[in-house]
C-alpha cells in the first residue's frame, strides 16, 4: 500500500528526514516511536503533502501512485488520512458542514453520488457512537474551544467518516484519559480491515496494548534505526532511548 524509499526532507534549510525506508501492506498496523524532535510528525506531514516541507530526495508510492506528485487534497481523496498531533480550529465552520464537505469530495472522487441529508445524518450518528463523541461537539465549530482530548476524538470521528485506506495517527493517544484511550483504540480496531492499514505514531507502549502493531519502527534523528516486533516497544519502555543513541552513534 505504501512504499517509501530513501525519503529526505528539510524545512528552512534544516535537514530533518535523512533517508526513510518503509513499507506498509494492506491489513497491517505499523507503529513509529522515537524521541521528541526525531522527525515523526515531519514524516507524517510530508506524506500528507504539507507544503511547509521541501522534499530533497527519495520517493513514496501509495497504491502504486507517486504520492509526492499529488496535491494534499488528492492524497486525501486517494485514501490517505492524517490524524493531526495538533488539530487546528476553524472558527465559525460547523463540524457537520466540514464533515459533509469532506465526505462529498471523497465520494465524488470515488465516483459515488453525494449522500442525502438523511443518509449523512445516519452515518454520522453511527460513527459518532463508535467514538462516543457528544452530539453537542458535532454541532460546534471545528475544534473550536474543544479540549485536547475532544480534539483527538474528533480526529477519529473524521477517520471513521472518511474511511481511508491508510490512516496515520500522530500521537492521537497523548492528551487522552484512560477511558478515552480505550474508546479511541476500540474505534480503530473496529475500523481496521484487510483492506486498510494504520501507521501509529506514539510515545507510549500503553496504546500498543490496545492497538497491537505488526511492526514497530524507531525513528531517530531522521532515520529509522530499528524495526521489530511489538516487543521493541516494551524494550523502549524499559530502557528509554539512551542505549539506542549509543548503538547508533557507536555503529
Amino acid at each position: 500500500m505504501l512504499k517509501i524509499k530513501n525519503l529526505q526532507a528539510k524545512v528552512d534549510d534544516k535537514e530533518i528526514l535523512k533517508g526513510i525506508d518503509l513499507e506498509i501492506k494492506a491489513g497491517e498496523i505499523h507503529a513509529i516511536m522515537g524521541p521528541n524532535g526525531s522527525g515523526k510528525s515531519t514524516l507524517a506531514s510530508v506524506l500528507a503533502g504539507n507544503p511547509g516541507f521541501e522534499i530533497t530526495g527519495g520517493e513514496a508510492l501509495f497504491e502504486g501512485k507517486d504520492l509526492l506528485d499529488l496535491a494534499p487534497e488528492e492524497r486525501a481523496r486517494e485514501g490517505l488520512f492524517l490524524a493531526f498531533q495538533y488539530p487546528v480550529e476553524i472558527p465559525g465552520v460547523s463540524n457537520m458542514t466540514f464533515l459533509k464537505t469532506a465526505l462529498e469530495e471523497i465520494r465524488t472522487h470515488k465516483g459515488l453520488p453525494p449522500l442525502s441529508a438523511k443518509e449523512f445524518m445516519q452515518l454520522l450518528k453511527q460513527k459518532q457512537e463508535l467514538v462516543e463523541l457528544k452530539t453537542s461537539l458535532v454541532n460546534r465549530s471545528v475544534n473550536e474551544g474543544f479540549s485536547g482530548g475532544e480534539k483527538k476524538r474528533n480526529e477519529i470521528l473524521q477517520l471513521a467518516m472518511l474511511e481511508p485506506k491508510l490512516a496515520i495517527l500522530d500521537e492521537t493517544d497523548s492528551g487522552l484519559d484512560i477511558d478515552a484511550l480505550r474508546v479511541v483504540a476500540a474505534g480503530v480496531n473496529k475500523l481496521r480491515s484487510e483492506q486498510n492499514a494504520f501507521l501509529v505514531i506514539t510515545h507510549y507502549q500503553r496504546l500498543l496494548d490496545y492497538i497491537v502493531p505488526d511492526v514497530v519502527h524507531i525513528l531517530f534523528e531522521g532515520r529509522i534505526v530499528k524495526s521489530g516486533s511489538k516487543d521493541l516497544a516494551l524494550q523502549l519502555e524499559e530502557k528509554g532511548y539512551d542505549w539506542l543513541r549509543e548503538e547508533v552513534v557507536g555503529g
Partner: protein
Amino acid sequence: MSKDEHLLSTLATNEYDYGFTTNIEMELAPKGLNEDTIRYISEKKNEPEWMLEWRLKAFKHFLQMSMPDWQNFPMPEIDFQGISYFAAPKKNQLKSLDEVDPELLDTFNKLGIPLEEQKLLSGVAVDAVFDSVSVATTFREKLAEQGIIFCSFGEAVQNHPELVKKYLGTVVPQTDNVFAALNAAVFSDGSFAYIPKGVRCPMELSTYFRINSQNTGQFERTLLVADEGSYVSYLEGCTAPMRDENQLHAAVVELIALDNAEIKYSTVQNWYPGDKEGKGGIYNFVTKRGICKGKNSKISWTQVETGSAITWKYPSVILKGDNSVGEFYSVALTRNKQLADTGTKMIHLGKNTRSRIISKGISAGNSHNSYRGQVSIHASAPGSRNFTQCDSLLIGDRCGAHTFPYIENRNSSSVIEHEATTSKIAEDQIFYLNQRGIDTEKAVALIVNGYASEVLNKLPMEFAVEARKLLAVSLDGSVG
C-alpha cells in the same frame, strides 16, 4: 510557487455571474442633469406638484454641495452630465405580472427570482426595480388584507401621498450629502412599505434592483414605516450587467420605527464589481439610515457586500426612543481592485439605548476595505451601551484593511466597548482542510464563511444560503 502565491492564485478573479444584458425596448431620458431633467422625470411619473417641488428644492441643494473627501479612497471623477437619469422598459403601467415583458421576467428568472414561482411558493413578497421603474410587486393583495402597504415608490406617491409627505426626507434630509441630494432630485422609483399598528408582517418583503441600460444611473428610494408594535423583515438584492464604464448607483433608504416596532433590513449587494484590472463596475454611493423614533423600538441592518467597484455606505440608526436598539451586522468582501469604505453610525439620543456593531471585512487581491464607524452617545442618553466588534481578514499581502472608529460618549453612565482584530487565513487551516480532501479554493470559501457566520446567521434563512454561495463564488477562481 510560494504558499502565498498559491493561495492568491486560487482566488484571483472570478467572472461575474449576473453580467448579461436584457434586450428590451427602453425609454431613456436624454443625458444630462438640469431642472428640465427633473421635470421630465416627474412628468413621466405623473407626479403631483408637491413632489416636483420637493425634487427641485433638492436639486438646488445639490448644486451647492461638494463631493465628500474624507473616505479612504480617491474620489473618482463622476460626470453627472453624462448620465441618463431615467430609463424604463417601454411597456408600462403594469397591472399584473401577466403584463410584464416576458424578456424581463426571463431576466429576473436568470437572477434567481422567479416572480411567478415566488408568488406561489415562497411567501416572499417581491418588488423588482429594473433600471428606473418598479415592474412587479407580488403578493400585494394578500398583504393588503392586513393593511400592509407594499408598493413601488411611484405608486405610493400617487396612492398614499399623506404617508409619503409625512415621512419622506425625515431621516435622510436632502442636504445630508451630495448623493442624497442628487437622489432626492432625480430618484426614479423604489419601494415603499407601511406596516400598520400591531401587525407582524407575515412574510419577508423583498426588493431586487437591477441596472440594465447603458449610461444610466440608478437612483432608487426606499421608505419603510413600521407603526407602533409592528414588525417587518425586508430584504434587498442587486445586480448589474458587466460594462466597461462605471455606472453610478446613489440610493437612499429611510426607515422609521415607532413605539415597540421592529425593522430588520437585510441587503445582499452584488452589483458588478468591475474586471480584475479595475475596469468598469458600479459606483455605489448609498445613504441608508433608520430612526428608532418610538420607545422600545428596534432597527437591525444586516449587509453582505460583495459587489461594486466602489462601495460608500454607512447604514445607521438614530436611537431616539428610550430603550431602543440599533444593530449593524456587516460582511464586506473586496477583491481585485475593489474599494469599500463602509460601516455605520449609531447615534444614541434616548435613555437606555443599546447598539451593537459586528463588522467582518475580507480583503483579497489589490483591494482596500475600510470600516468606518461612529458611535455617539449624547448627554440625553444615560444608561446606554454600545458594543463594537470589528474584524478584518486579509487574503494575500497586496490588499489593505483599515479601521476608522469615531467614538464619543457624553455620559458617565453609558459604556462603549470596542474590539478589533486583523488576521490572515492560516496556512495550517488550509492544509487541515486539504488533508480532508477539500481543495484550497473550497477551503478558503469555507474558512471565510466561517469567519462571517456570525453575520450570515442574522440573515433570513433562505437568503443566508444565497449569501454563503455568493461569498464562495466571489472567492472562486471559476464560477459554478
